């Protein structure tokens, strides 16, 4: 019997006006979005390789270790998934002078946005008259008069409606994916397809949640016009209001220290205060050194130094000691200031992490946020990826630091008098940062709670719909 009602539900929906409109809308919007995002992704790849080439050109003439850090910084690279999901794209760039304010005005559209906003609304549009509409038409009475069990009816309704809803989505997604498949520049790997399959599963759970919610609301109302009002009200709250409010509420509950002030303090510690300390240490130590090696008291030019060193091994020792002292003094200054900076940064970071965590927790009251986190984490475009990038970036920083120290030591062994930090050197043998996404296993593990939460939310509303329908007055 269930199969018959499911079939009836599916057929009833498929010939309905809203199904056709949904299908048409998604068939246009999803492929168009995919097409544009794919082009955008290819553009970003070009941009990244252009920037890399510029860095290489720069390095050939001006690559010196003293200020190379910011230029060789690890940067996130475009990933193939960007042709479907944008996630937390770094376009806005508020931390730099050049920022792009357009996405602040209108957030850019992607698959996650389409599912989160459009599919949830469509699910409610499909569900609002599932019970109240049949009652108005009088068919509910007839159905139940024929000895049909109520549990069967409601189960079949949710199953049939939910399945029908997924059809337009899957169809449009398949067409969108064709765009990705035919584009020679986009290379999706096995892990990407698996992640997409999981995101689709998440979409199914998300849509089923809203369908269950719609059926529940429908079975609490006796007219379909009242039921759509309530449905829209709940939708506005869950989809539009709760997620937007949550970071603000979290920022009131768990404030963070003034970011700009902390930044400036760090800037002062690593710049002027470090220089003062370095110079002070250097002066002290040089004084001791001059007492030991009087030759240092005469301020010789680099060329004179070289000449003296060739003649006199004792002077060579003195200059060697001077160089070591200079290096030691600045190392000491960097260490002391670095410790202070680390303390300040860590305190601020802990507060910020606590606020982010709280925002995330509060926003999870809305299935939209749960789905957004799940989909962005799975596609490596979300919060988890930022943390992952931070980790691989730090690893690379260390590798480059080691390379830098080794290289400087080598160069100084060759010519101890030269200021190698401020001399262009050949860095073509440097370690290069290659961005790799987190392995799928970790991403899936992170998305698991999201799946369970969506499933849980869905089951709760299905149970509520079930209970309400059992006691529904069908007359």
């Amino acid at each position, binding site marked *: 019997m269930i199969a018959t009602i499911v079939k009836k539900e599916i057929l009833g929906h498929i010939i309905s006006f809203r199904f056709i409109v949904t299908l048409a809308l998604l068939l246009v919007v999803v492929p168009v979005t995919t097409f544009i995002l794919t082009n955008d992704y290819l553009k970003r790849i070009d941009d990244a390789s252009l920037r890399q080439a510029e*860095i290489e050109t720069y390095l050939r003439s001006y690559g010196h270790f003293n200020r190379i850090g910011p230029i060789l910084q690890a940067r996130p690279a475009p990933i193939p998934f960007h042709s479907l999901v944008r996630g937390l794209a770094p376009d806005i760039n508020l931390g730099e002078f050049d920022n792009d304010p357009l996405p602040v005005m209108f957030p850019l559209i992607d698959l996650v946005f389409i599912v989160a906003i459009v599919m949830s609304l469509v699910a409610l549009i499909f569900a609002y008259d599932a019970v109240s509409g049949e009652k108005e038409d009088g068919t509910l009475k007839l159905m139940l008069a024929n000895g049909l069990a109520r549990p069967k009816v409601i189960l079949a309704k949710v199953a049939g409606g939910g399945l029908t809803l997924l059809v337009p989505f899957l169809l449009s997604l398949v067409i969108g994916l064709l765009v990705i498949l035919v584009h020679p520049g986009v290379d999706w790997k096995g892990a990407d397809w698996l992640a997409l399959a999981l995101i689709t599963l998440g979409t199914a759970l998300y849509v089923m949640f809203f369908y269950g919610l719609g059926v529940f609301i429908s079975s609490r109302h006796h007219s379909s016009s009242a039921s759509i009002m309530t449905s829209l009200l709940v939708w506005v709250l869950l989809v539009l209001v709760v997620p937007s409010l949550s970071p603000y509420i979290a920022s009131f509950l768990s404030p*963070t220290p003034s970011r*700009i002030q902390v*930044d400036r303090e760090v800037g002062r510690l690593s710049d002027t205060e470090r220089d003062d300390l370095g110079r002070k240490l250097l002066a002290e130590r040089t004084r001791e050194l001059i007492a030991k090696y009087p030759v240092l008291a005469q301020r010789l030019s680099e060329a004179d130094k070289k000449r003296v060193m060739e003649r006199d091994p004792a002077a060579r020792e003195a200059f060697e000691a001077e160089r070591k002292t200079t290096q030691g003094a600045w190392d000491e200054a960097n260490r002391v200031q670095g410790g202070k900076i680390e303390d300040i940064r860590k305190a601020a970071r802990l507060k910020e992490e606590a606020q982010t965590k709280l925002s995330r927790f509060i926003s999870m009251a809305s299935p939209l946020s749960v789905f957004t986190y799940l989909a962005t984490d799975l596609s490596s475009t979300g919060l988890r990826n930022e943390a992952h990038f931070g980790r691989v970036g730090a690893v690379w920083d260390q590798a480059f630091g080691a390379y830098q120290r080794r290289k400087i030591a080598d160069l100084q062994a060759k010519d101890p008098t030269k200021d190698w930090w401020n001399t262009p050197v050949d860095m073509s043998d440097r370690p290069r940062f290659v961005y790799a996404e987190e392995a799928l296993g970790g991403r899936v593990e992170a998305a698991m709670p999201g799946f369970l939460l969506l499933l849980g939310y869905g089951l709760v509303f299905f149970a509520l719909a079930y209970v309400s329908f059992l006691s529904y007055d069908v007359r």
Partner: protein
Amino acid sequence: MTWTIARKEILSNLLSYKFYVIILLAAVLAATSFFVMTRDYKERLADYSLIRPKPGEPVAVNPPNPLSIFAKGLDEAMARSFEVGITGVTVRAGQKSGNAIFAFFPTPDFLYVVRVVLSLVALLFGFDQVSREKEGGTLRLMLANQTSRSAVLLGKWAGNFLSLAIPFALVTGLGIAVLGLDPDIRFSADQVLRLALILVLTLVYIAFFLSLGILISTLTRRASSSVVILLFIWVLLVFILPNLGTLVARQIVDVPSVRALSEKREQVWTREILLRIKGQGDMPSHVLTISAENDALEADYRVKFDRLVNLSKNINRVSPVASFVYAVTEIAGTGIGEEGAFKSDVVRYKNAVLGKMLASPDLKSSEYPAFLYRYRPLGRVLAAGALFDTAWLAAFGVLFFALSYLAFVRYDVR
């Protein structure tokens, strides 16, 4: 006659479930938004008092704009700290960049509530105006009594507009009154005028969606199909078209990525410092080179970016919702145009500070001019596009009303 019908509409609205649900929702959301955004503004103000430059410091920081409570727009970008040094401008972003969740969801300001929720509410008032009365059989009766069709339509429009606008104006007025009592928030006379304009625009926006709702209602036979169509149109107008437009424009206009620009700046100053250490040229000439190259980068980007902005604005204007957003943010002083003007001011300030630095032999001075950004006057903002956007929005509203009149004249009331 029109007035009688309008009164009847208002009274029947007052008795309906829909009216209470909707008004309650809109009121709660508007109140929540006021509360949250006021608190956010105050926190940003407190942060500003911590980071504001001391007299003589070469730092540009613009205080948060009180109108950002209503339309946040790009105020966060305009309230950053710009510190001028000989190697360029160091930019530091505020609190929001420490919590990535802010980037996931839109800001719940008054503009958002109006743009998304109030538009939906207006549609829900309009969607069954004609089809409901037809289904109820009252439309026939009304017209049989020699009421002209135009009077019916106009009465319906006016009645529903008033039953929407009055509660809305009450809630908003109350919210603004509470804000006015707050000693920390001070509006200048100019800002009060701007706020009044924003409220007028909001009414135009509501009128637009109400007309759209009535139009679809006159084109459909049943209320249930009317609501479905309207919801799809709403999603298109509010969410899809404006968000897609920017991406489309980006396909057409080639703009260097912001990341490429930051990297270039980095390369310019490190190169010049290195050349200086190697002994080529004196420091002031290197400082000037850095500044000139950075300004050239900015100028080049500005030209291309403005082209992108104009194109994306024009594409987005397919949806009058985008027009509304542009007009409100520009009037509030938190729009794209204002941000561009502000950026140019920062560049000018940087050059003034650099001039002062270069005038002294050790490239340092203890007294730098203070930075003060003057918002573009309202007249210029209106001329620069806000007036056009308002007219565009109003024109769509009038067009839809005219179309619904045409459709209603031929409507089969049986």
